[in-house]
């Protein structure tokens, strides 16, 4: 019976082609707009490290004071003095500092022109903390950090460019004139958003090329390739002066496995800031934060406002399309009041009429979904007009999105049909028969 109703539904679509086309287009456009904006929103608001996000925390210490900070919030990064002090105390199971560096690499040796390679100066704990997948070799050890060793972990992409993807562990690479021993090669790894560096990036960037020890980068006096933010009186003239200044350019991460550790670490931060106040370095009360990944993503507004606004507009748009569909379905169904009257007189129950028209609406929804799917795939290509390429390429059509598009179209149209179908089912057979 259901299949028969479905056939009837498809047939009735052809009866008023104009009205049907209008409904199908409205649903299709509404679904497509919602799906395109949703796919971008999902990509930018996703959790980049789901199984660890509640155990990774980034500490912040206010070294600028109420005069210069962001409305009472500590700066987004740490200065050198605070960062080194926090690491030195080693109050967390795992911990790392990091900052962005840019070096040059010559894939073809001295003959080729140098290319830029973007990397991070990190501590050895970075790899197990952030679950960086390694293809060859391993991360460097704490001893390497201590020894300020000239070692490097390459990304799969840079390893491909330099060594054709072969196991390069133990080989030497030259970055900006200095030699490094390769100890590991990652698999492709580029978490989106890049939660661990929201200080220097907006969360969406090309994959990193390499990782080197933080201590080694300091020895080479590698300036940060990311942000550097200073406040108040600036009086430094050299690298060492810069390190001792209030300029923030380092991000720290700690792994804290349970709530007790978190509150212990928070107390440690408070007492550290209090000690700095006591020592006269800060002349303000301790002002520290300890945010986990989700809180950090939220605080840094990783989801671009364009994404939220366009999703809201698309949903509003979809609601209007549905209101429109309710009206048109009402017109379409009630036009056939005579036909319904005959069927009711011949013994069809209200339930059956109701079911038939709901299924007919489902057929409209399915047609709208197919149109929506076509529009979605076209629209995906033009996401680039609104978002920068690094974000735009995150939006792509996959199986789950296709299924969601069709499901949304059918379900939404059937919901919209509740009232029109109910009206159709209430048609009085006697009335219809009399008036004809």
């Amino acid at each position, binding site marked *: 019976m259901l299949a028969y109703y479905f056939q009837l539904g498809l047939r009735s679509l052809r009866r008023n082609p104009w009205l049907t086309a209008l409904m199908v287009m409205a649903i299709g456009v509404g679904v497509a707009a919602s799906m395109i904006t949703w796919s971008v929103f999902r990509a930018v608001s996703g959790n980049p490290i789901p199984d660890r996000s509640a155990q990774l925390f980034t500490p912040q210490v206010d070294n600028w004071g109420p005069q210069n900070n962001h409305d009472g919030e500590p700066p987004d990064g740490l200065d050198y003095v605070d960062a080194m002090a926090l690491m030195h105390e080693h109050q967390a199971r795992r911990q790392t500092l990091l900052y962005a560096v840019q070096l040059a690499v010559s894939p073809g040796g001295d003959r080729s022109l*140098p290319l830029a390679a973007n990397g991070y100066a990190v501590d050895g704990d970075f790899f197990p903390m952030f679950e960086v997948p390694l293809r060859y070799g391993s991360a460097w050890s704490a001893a390497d950090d201590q020894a300020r060793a000239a070692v490097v972990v390459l990304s799969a992409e840079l390893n491909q460019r330099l060594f054709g993807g072969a196991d390069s562990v133990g080989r030497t690479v030259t970055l900006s004139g200095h030699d490094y021993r390769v100890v590991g090669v990652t698999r492709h790894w580029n978490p989106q958003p890049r939660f661990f560096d929201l200080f220097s990036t907006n969360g969406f960037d090309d994959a990193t090329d390499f990782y080197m020890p933080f201590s080694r980068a300091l020895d080479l006096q590698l*300036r940060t390739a990311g942000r550097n933010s200073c406040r108040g*009186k600036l009086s430094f003239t050299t690298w060492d002066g810069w390190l001792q200044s209030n300029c923030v350019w380092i991000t720290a991460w700690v792994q804290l496995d349970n709530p007790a550790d978190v509150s212990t670490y928070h107390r440690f931060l408070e007492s550290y800031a209090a000690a700095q106040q006591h020592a006269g370095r800060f002349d303000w009360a301790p002002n520290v934060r300890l945010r986990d990944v989700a809180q950090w993503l939220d605080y840094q507004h990783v989801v671009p406002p364009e994404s*939220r606004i366009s999703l809201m507009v698309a949903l509003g748009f979809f609601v*209007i399309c549905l209101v429109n569909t309710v*009206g*048109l379905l009402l017109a379409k169904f009630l036009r056939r009041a005579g036909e319904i009257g005959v069927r009711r007189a011949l013994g069809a129950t209200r339930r059956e009429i109701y079911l038939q028209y709901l299924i007919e609406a489902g057929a409209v929804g399915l047609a709208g979904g197919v149109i929506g799917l076509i529009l979605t795939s076209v629209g995906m290509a033009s996401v680039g007009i609104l978002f920068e390429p690094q974000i735009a390429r995150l939006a792509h059509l996959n199986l789950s999105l296709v299924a969601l598009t069709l499901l949304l179209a059918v379900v939404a149209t059937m919901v919209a049909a509740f009232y029109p179908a109910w009206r159709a089912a209430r048609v009085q057979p006697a009335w219809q028969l009399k008036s004809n």
Partner: protein
Amino acid sequence: MKLHPMIAALRRHKAGVVLIALQIALTLAIVCNAVFIIGQRVSRVNRPTGLDENNLMLVTQSWVGAPSGDQPGDVDKLDSMQQADLAALRAMPDVESVAPINSLPLLNSSWNGSAALKPGVELREGNARTTYYFTDEQAFRTLGLKLVAGRAFTPADVQHRGFRDTSTPPVVIVTKALADKLFPDGTALGKTIFLDGGSSPSTIIGEVDRLQVPGTGSWTNSFTWNATLVPTRLDAGFARYAVRAKPGRLDAVMHAVPQVLYGVNRMRVLDDDSVKPFAQIRQEAYRSDVGMAILMGVVCLILLGVTAAGIVGLTSFWVGQRHRQIGVRRALGARKIDILHYFQMENLLISGVGALIGLGLAIGLNMLLMKHFEMDRLPVLYVLAGIVVVMALGQGAVFAPARRASNVPPVVATRSV
């Protein structure tokens, strides 16, 4: 025409009336806000930077194996590398002028600080936030800046220093906006200011008409036009050069620049992104603004189309349903024009109610956007214009079905009773 029978008739079609009114209301709410967003974005994108943007390009490059230290010897070495690049670029036949510069408007990479009238004043207490452009005497010609008071830099003003050296310059040129902020009563020329809470004064020797800061985010809104030009070459492992090509020769210069620079020194990073015309910088800075305006425009158009189609659909249905009643009215003496007016009037009534609801929704939506997205208050004019548009849309949409209704012949009344 009396409204009473019309309202009585509408009460028999509650669902349809509610649907059309609702659709009009939602459309009005979204279209008003969307058009407002478009207007704001367009005016943001259209504001001039103060540069002469045609024939201007930016070269960003870094040296491989350049000294990274802060010792005077290292800084001098870096400076001579930079000078060699400048000389080579200036010698190019199609090049008008070249200036070293740390950033350009809309580039979103900036060095910001504060300017104060007294020494040792920290940022928040300082008189004004400002961005710094570190450049040399060719900046005016290269960027096309308009000097409104004082003099431009001369080669004698130009110094050089290490990238991490924060000592302040003896002379600076500021934008008119910054000068007015620092010295509201009277000229800023010849006055001294203190940069970044420093203790050595900088003398203002000139004022430029307009120069935007590099940042385009909302955090720069408080100092968008506050720029300070410093006659200093910054010496670091990387350098940026603003290049003005002779009229119409921009493409030729862009193609030739990499070879010229590699000719000076091959050990440098110079990739696809290194040589950019200013038009591209502008496009990248305002991508999301332009995209948002286009998106909103498309949404508005489709929305108006869908709403109009919905009105046509439902009114046609009503006309079909009331076929016989129309015939009866015609037989009783109503003219065609009366029938036409009836449907037009009916639509005016429904869309009027819808527009009233939409007015509330539009303001509500705007308040929501203000709360979450740093939007401004929606001017009433936009809403009034929106109301006129949706009412006109309703009238336009209802015309065809109403015409069809007015063409129903009186004889229908006598058929098949």
